[in-house]
């Protein structure tokens, strides 16, 4: 049976074009057919999770039923009660499948878990967020069908961007007017084509052509200080370029496709390489993930710490929370020393960055701020980030331990 990686080859895009055409004509004439949208969603989900990958498909179905039961159950419960422990239990239960998937390879010699499927980590974000907003009372009108559409929205199912329930629902329930929708089509088509450039030309060059050569060179140049060598430096930049173009390219496809369907899925990247500091970097890199962490982990933890006056100084609160936040992100990528180190690295970088910004604010007169310092800041940030990606890449693991 036919089966595809999402956005993996020309045939996928051709099928996408054909499937979206009736939907687009519909929206242009002010109509949205829920039935048709559901049918093409199912069609593309079967393409992604069917055939030889059917075990993943089964895992996805069970997972979705499980999350529906949790979110629905909690929404019903929340109408009457609001107990803290019940809320925490629900959140823990909803991330339990993800935890099992992430921990299994670490404890079972790299074996992947049976309940895993492509996109499980991204779906968990959407489910947890739904539960948290239900608790806050900001999400009052939970609908099972909308939740299903939100979770299974095929353009973003495998790797995001991570949308928000209320934002998605507003788009999904309405039909953009013709003028606005034409603008969305225009953007969507442009995004998809920039995506082609990123993913199939640039990421292919860096990731498929250059990177394996650099990796072999790096492995052959072991023996120096910490097994480091110039090829490792080359690999660091090459890996960073590949990571960016591959993921930004994929995100452009996902956002572009959503736009064509009349849904304004949020953007995932906004020129991250021009960030003057690491804090700004996280406002530009994998935006929907970092904002999710900001809104549902960082801000909530800070709120809780401050409310209960755990730390005397606000700066201590911020610093501790940065570290926790980024460590959680590291664990989310996978339970390996290099992902966790990567998280810790960014946590510490954020702490230092904040301290520097405070210092700079205090000594505004004596610290120069001009074009040169701006360029230097961007250069420094980009290189720090590339270094963190070298940790993230796992090459050091291969250099040192294999």
């Amino acid at each position, binding site marked *: 049976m036919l089966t595809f990686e999402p956005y993996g080859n020309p045939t996928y895009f051709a099928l996408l074009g054909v499937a979206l055409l009736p939907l687009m004509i519909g929206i242009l004439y002010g109509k949205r057919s829920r039935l048709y949208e559901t049918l093409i969603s199912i069609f593309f989900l079967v393409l992604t999770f069917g055939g030889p990958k059917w075990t993943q498909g089964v895992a996805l179905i069970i997972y979705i039923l499980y999350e529906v039961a949790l979110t629905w159950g909690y929404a019903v419960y929340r109408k009457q009660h609001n107990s803290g422990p019940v809320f925490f239990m629900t959140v823990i239960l909803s991330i339990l499948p993800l935890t099992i998937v992430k921990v299994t390879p670490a404890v079972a010699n790299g074996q992947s878990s049976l309940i895993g499927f492509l996109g499980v980590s991204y779906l968990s974000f959407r489910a947890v967020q739904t539960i*948290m*907003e239900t608790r*806050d*009372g*900001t*999400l009052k009108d939970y609908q099972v069908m909308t939740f299903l559409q939100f979770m299974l929205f095929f353009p973003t199912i495998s790797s995001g961007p991570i949308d928000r329930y209320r934002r998605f629902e507003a788009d999904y329930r309405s039909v953009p007017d013709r003028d606005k929708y034409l603008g969305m089509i225009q953007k969507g088509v442009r995004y998809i084509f920039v995506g082609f450039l990123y993913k199939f030309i640039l990421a292919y060059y860096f990731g498929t052509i250059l990177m394996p050569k650099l990796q072999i060179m790096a492995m052959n140049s072991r023996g120096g200080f910490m097994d480091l060598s110039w090829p490792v430096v080359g690999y660091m930049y090459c890996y960073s370029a590949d990571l960016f173009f591959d993921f930004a390219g994929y995100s452009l496809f996902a956002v572009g496709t959503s736009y064509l369907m009349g849904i304004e899925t949020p953007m995932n990247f906004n020129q991250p390489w021009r960030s003057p500091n690491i*804090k700004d970097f996280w406002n530009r890199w994998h935006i929907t993930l970092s904002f999710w962490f*900001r*809104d549902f982990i*960082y*801000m*909530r933890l*800070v*709120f809780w710490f*401050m*409310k209960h006056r755990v730390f005397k100084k*606000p700066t201590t*609160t*911020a610093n501790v929370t940065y570290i926790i936040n980024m460590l959680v992100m590291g664990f989310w990528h996978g339970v390996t020393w290099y992902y966790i180190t990567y998280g810790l690295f960014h946590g510490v970088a954020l702490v230092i960055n904040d301290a520097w*910004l405070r210092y700079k*604010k205090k000594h505004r007169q004596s610290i120069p701020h001009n074009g040169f310092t701006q360029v230097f800041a961007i250069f420094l940030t980009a290189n720090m980030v590339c270094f963190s990606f070298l940790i993230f890449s796992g090459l050091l693991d291969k250099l040192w331990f294999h």
Partner: protein
Amino acid sequence: MDIKATVLQILSDLTGNDVSGAMDDNLFDSGLLDSMGSVQLLLQLQSDLGINVPVSEFERSEWDTPNKIIAKAESLA
């Protein structure tokens, strides 16, 4: 109690700046507020004005200038 004056007082304590002269400037873009500052703002609103804002109600684009914050506070009071 005057909500506007209280909010301005909270903001000036938080940011170390008097923001009353630039009521429509984006506080996040200028670096005066960040996530940490937002949480502090929400906590202060709660203690000083008794306004309860859940974190998930805090949508950045609705809270990014002094005027918008005052409007939000007034609507929630």
